[in-house]
C-alpha cells in the first residue's frame, strides 16, 4: 500500500494548513483591523451591552417598533438557535400564524386600517432578522408616536434618518434596523426629559 503514507502525511499537513493556520491568521488580522465587527457588532448603552446591530430582538410594547416575526425555539429571536419556520405556503399552520400576527397588530393600533406590509406578518429566514422594510416602519409610526406622546412628524423623521436605501438601486432593499430605531427613540425621550 504505497498510497497510505502520502495519504496520511498530506492529510496532516493540509489539516494544519487549512484547519489551524488559516483560521487563526484570519482571526488575528480580523481582530486587529475590524475588532468591533469580528466580535459581533455589539451595541452598548452607558457601557452596558444591549444587543447586536446585526441580531434582531423581540419587541411587543406599543411604544417600540416591532421587528420581523421570529420562528426560533423556544422563544422568538433566540440568538443561539437560529431558524426559519419552514412552514410550506399552503400549510394551514402558516395561515393561522399570519392571522394571529395580523390580530396582534390590529389590537395594538385599532384605528389603522392600512394594508399590513408582508414582512411584518411573515417569519424571517434566520429568525434573527434585525431589519424591517420602510413600509413596515411607517405602518407603525402612528402607534409608536401615540404611545410615546411624540409628534408623528418627529417619529417619521427618525425613521427617515435611520433608513437605508438600496446601494446603486441594485444591492439591498429599502429597510431600517429595528434595534437602532428603538435606541434612537429612547435617546429622543432622554433629550425631551432634559
Amino acid at each position, binding site marked *: 500500500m504505497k*498510497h*497510505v*503514507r502520502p495519504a*496520511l*502525511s498530506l*492529510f496532516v499537513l*493540509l*489539516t494544519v494548513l*487549512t*484547519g489551524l493556520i488559516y483560521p487563526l491568521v484570519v*482571526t488575528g488580522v*480580523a481582530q486587529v483591523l475590524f475588532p468591533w465587527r*469580528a*466580535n*459581533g*457588532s455589539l451595541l452598548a448603552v452607558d457601557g452596558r*451591552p*444591549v*444587543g447586536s446591530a*446585526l441580531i*434582531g430582538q423581540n*419587541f411587543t*410594547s406599543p411604544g417600540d417598533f416591532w421587528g*420581523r416575526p421570529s420562528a426560533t425555539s423556544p*422563544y*422568538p*429571536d433566540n*440568538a*443561539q*438557535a*437560529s*431558524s426559519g*419556520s*419552514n*412552514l*410550506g*405556503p*399552503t*400549510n394551514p399552520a*402558516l395561515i393561522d400564524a399570519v392571522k394571529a400576527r*395580523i390580530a396582534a397588530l390590529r389590537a395594538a393600533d385599532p384605528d389603522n386600517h392600512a*394594508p*399590513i*406590509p*408582508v414582512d411584518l*406578518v*411573515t417569519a424571517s*429566514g*434566520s429568525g434573527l*432578522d*434585525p431589519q*424591517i422594510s*420602510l*413600509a413596515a416602519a411607517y405602518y407603525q409610526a402612528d402607534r409608536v408616536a401615540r404611545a410615546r406622546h411624540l409628534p408623528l412628524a418627529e417619529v417619521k423623521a427618525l425613521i427617515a434618518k435611520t433608513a437605508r436605501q*438600496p*446601494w446603486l438601486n441594485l*444591492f*439591498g*432593499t*429599502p429597510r431600517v434596523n429595528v434595534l437602532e430605531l428603538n435606541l434612537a427613540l429612547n435617546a429622543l425621550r432622554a433629550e425631551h426629559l432634559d
Partner: protein
Amino acid sequence: MTIEFFMLLAVFLAVLLATVRPLGRYFAWIMDGRPAWGPLAALETRLLRLCGVDDSEMDWRHYALGLLIFSLIGTLIVYALQRLQLWLPLNPQHFGAVTPDSSFNTAISFVTNTNWQGYAGESTMSYLTQMLGLAVQNFLSAASGIAVAFVLIRAFARHSTRLLGNFWKDTYRITAYALLPISFVLALVLVSQGVIQNFLAYQNVTTLEPTSYTTPKLDAAGQPVKGADGQVINETVVVPQQTIAMGPVASQEAIKELGTNGGGFFNANSAHPYENPNALTNFLEMLAVPLIPAALVYTFGFAIGDTRQGWALLAAMVLVFAVAVTLLAAAEHQGNPAIGALGVDQAHTALQSGGNMEGKETRFGIAASVLFDAVTTTTSCGAVNSMIDSYTPLGGMVPMALIQLGETIFGGVGSGLTGMLVFALVAVFIGGLMVGRTPEYVGKKIESFDMKMVSIAVLLMPILVLVGTAFAAVLPVGLAGLANPGAHGFSEMLYAFTSAANNNGSAFAGLSANTPFYNGLLGVAMLFGRFWVMVPILALAGSLAAKKRIPAGSGTMPTHGAMFISLLIGTLLLVGALNFFPAWALGPIVEQLSPLASH
C-alpha cells in the same frame, strides 16, 4: 418581476463571466504542475517530499485509489472529532458528543462535498469540530472534486497514454495556490462587513424588552407536570437576556461558498446575519460559488487547444441558469395568494420588497434571495439565504429541478465540469445515432466502454433519489419526520434525497432529518452519489486518454456552435424530465394546483 432583479442578474453574470478567462488560465497553470514563484516552489517540493510523494504520474486506478484512501481518512477524522469534542479544546459552550448516527451522516456529508446538515451548528458543534473537522473537509472535498476534473481534462487533452497526473500533487497545488489565497481575501472582506471571527464564549446582552413565553412546566425528572384534571400545567418564563452565538465564522464562510460546500456555521446558514450581514456580502458569497466551476470550463477548452469548446459548454450553463432563475423570481414575486387574501400588502414598492417573504430576510428581499438560492442549487453548494421549504410550490420546484439536472449548470467545483462533459458525450452519442456514425467528441472516438461509464454516471443519481424517496414515503419512520402535511411533505422527502444523492446539501428544512433512519439512508445516498459517480468518470478518463486523437473530418459534428448547444440543453432537460416528472407531479405540481394556493 422587477427591474431590480434583472439588473442584479445582469451584473452578476457580467462579473462572473469576466473572471472566467483569467481564472481559467490560472487553473490550467495549476494543473500543468509548472513551478510556482521561487520560495513557494521550493516549499512545495520540500513538503511533498516530506509527505513521501514521488513526482511520477498515476494511471486512473491509482488515482482513484489515492482519492478513496484520502476521503476515508477524512471521514474517520470528522467522525472522531464529533464523538470526542467534549474532551477536546475550543469548546466554550461545553457541547457533548454528537450521536453516532448524526456523526456518521455529517462525516460523510462533509467529505462528499454535500454538507447536508441534520444538526444545528450553534447548538451542536464545538469551535474545534467546526474548524479542524468541517472546514478542513470544505477545502479537501473541493480539492478532490477539482482533481477529478483535472483528470478528465487531461484525458481529452492527451492521447495514447495511461498517465493522468499525481493525485497528491494536484490536491496540494489546488489547495495551496487557489482555495487558500482566495478564501483568505474573501474571509477578510466578509469580516469588514460584519461576519464574525472570534473564539469568544456566547455573549449575553440585556435586551431592551424582556421576552416572555409559555411552556409546559417540568418536574425534577424533566417530565411535564399535570394538574388534577390531567391537563399539562403551563408556566410563563421571562427571558431578560439574549445569548448570542459566536465563533470563527468568516474563515469557514469563505471556503463554504468557494468550495461549493454549503455547510453553514449556524443552523440558518447564509440567512443568519453573522454569516451574511448585507447585500454586498450576499453578492460576494453568490459570486464565490460558481467562480471555480465556471473557470474550469474555460480550463478545459484551453487545455484541449480549442477554447470554443469551453465557451459552448458555458453558454449552455448560462442559458439554462438565466431562464430557471427568472422563473423562480416570477414565482416568488407573486407572493402567497392565501396571505394576500388576508389583506396583507405583498406588492413591490419603493418602500418594501414585497412578495413571498416567509422565510426570507428583509435585507435581501426577493431578488437577492432567489438569485442566491438558484446559484447554490445549480452548483452543488446548497447554502441558502432564504428557506426553500417556505417558497411557493413552483418556486420550490425550481431549485429541486436544478439539482435534479445532475448539477451540471455550473455544478460543484470539478464535479460540475465532469457532469457537463458526461452529458456532452450523451448528446454526441444521440447525435451520432441520428446520422449513423460513430460519435466523437473533441478528437476522441466515443465507444461502447465509454458509454457504459457515462450511463452509470448519469443513471445512478435518479435511482438513488427515487428509490430513497419511495422508501421514506412508505415507512412510518420516514413519514414521522415531515413538518408539512400533504403534497408539500412529499416534496420535503423528495428534496432530501435529491440533495443528498447530488451532494448538494440544501433542504426543505422542515424535515426532521436528524433521526437514525434519515441520517443512515441519506448518508448512504451521499456516499454512492459521490464515489460511484467519480470512479466511473475516472475509468472513462482512463479509456479516453488511451485513445488516439483523430482529426476532425467532414462528417464530424461540430461541438461549439448553436446547434450543439441546443442539442446539449435538450439532452439535459429531456433526461431530467424523463427521470423526475412523475415525482414533480406528486409534489410541487399538485400543491400548486391545490385549492388553498389557488384562492
